[in-house]
Structure formats: structure tokens, C-alpha cells
């Protein structure tokens, strides 16, 4: 049996589930951030720094970044396997997506724990 080696979890059902779970994480994070910015119109640096200094917020933000990366991978994988028929081009595209995802995670950790 040949199984997919480039999908996120090597299983369509697993990817399907992860896409929805990560979507819910991103939904709550988006609603939270929009709400926070709406209710704090005169936001200053101290307040903004305090928000991201808490361990809870750091964990939540890192969870959102990891969710975004997984969500984006599954989405881009679906699109590229559907539309990029040429294997070499698809490999290059998916590699670029993977590299970007890696960069976003490391960069995000650096920002969050560098405050």
C-alpha cells in the first residue's frame, strides 16, 4: 500500500480533524485579539508588554502560531496537490511552505520569550 508522505499527519482523516481543531484555536484567538484591541483603544507599550509577559498568554499565542502553521500546511498541501501537477514544482512549493512555517515558529518563540 502506498500512503501519502507529504500530508501533515500521513492520514486524510487525521488532517481533516487537525484542520478543524486548529481552526477553532485560531477562531478563539482572533476573537480574543479583536476584542482586546477594540476595548483598549488607547493601548500603550506597558499594557501591551504586560499582556504578552504572562505565561498563559505566551502559551496561548504559541498555540495559535503552531495552529496557524499546521492549518496553513494542510491548506497549502491540499491546494498544491490539486493544482501543481508537476512533481518537481510541487516539491519546491511545498518545501518553501515548510521553510516559511519553520521560520514563523522560531521567530514567534523568539519574539514571545525575548520580551
Amino acid at each position: 500500500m502506498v500512503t501519502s508522505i507529504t500530508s501533515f499527519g500521513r492520514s486524510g482523516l487525521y488532517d481533516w480533524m487537525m484542520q478543524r481543531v486548529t481552526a477553532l484555536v485560531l477562531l478563539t484567538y482572533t476573537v480574543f485579539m479583536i476584542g482586546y484591541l477594540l476595548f483598549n483603544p488607547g493601548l500603550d507599550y506597558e499594557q501591551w508588554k504586560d499582556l504578552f509577559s504572562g505565561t498563559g498568554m505566551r502559551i496561548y499565542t504559541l498555540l495559535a502560531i503552531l495552529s496557524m502553521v499546521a492549518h496553513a500546511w494542510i491548506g497549502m498541501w491540499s491546494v498544491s496537490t490539486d493544482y501543481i501537477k508537476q512533481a518537481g514544482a510541487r516539491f519546491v512549493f511545498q518545501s518553501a511552505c515548510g521553510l516559511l512555517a519553520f521560520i514563523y515558529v522560531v521567530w514567534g518563540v523568539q519574539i514571545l520569550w525575548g520580551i
Partner: protein
Amino acid sequence: MMCVLSLSLESQAGFNEAAEMLQESFLAKLIAWGLVSALLYHFFAGIKHLIMDMGHCEELESGQLAAKATLIVAGVSILLAGVWIW
């Protein structure tokens, strides 16, 4: 987006710079609005997708209605986001 987050959390000066950029620069506002617009449309279309996963609005009539509702809600929220940014 990551650049602005990084800048705004790095120091007081960085925060001021990011805030000023988003308040003064037309190009920065346009980029922010573009990113927010794409996110909002994806956000509402995603919610519709989850509703359909739960087995609602899967018939032709209700499906078309849900699709139109998604477009309208996304359009209105994108306009509101534009008002907020400017």
C-alpha cells in the same frame, strides 16, 4: 504582521514606531487592511464550513443562502475594519 508584532514588543521606541506607522502611513494602513480583509473573509467562510460539517445548509437553496450570507457578513466586516483602521 510578525514584523509589527516584533517591533511593538521589542521596546518603547519600537512600539511608538509601529503605532506611528499604523497611524500615519497610508501604505501601512493599506497593507494592514489587506491582511485583515483576507483574514476576515477566511474567518467567516471557515465558520460556514464548520456549520456545513455539522450537517446544516447542505441543500441547494439553504447552501446558496449561506454562501450569500457569508459574502455579505464578510463584506460588511471588511468595510468596518477599514473604518477602524482609518
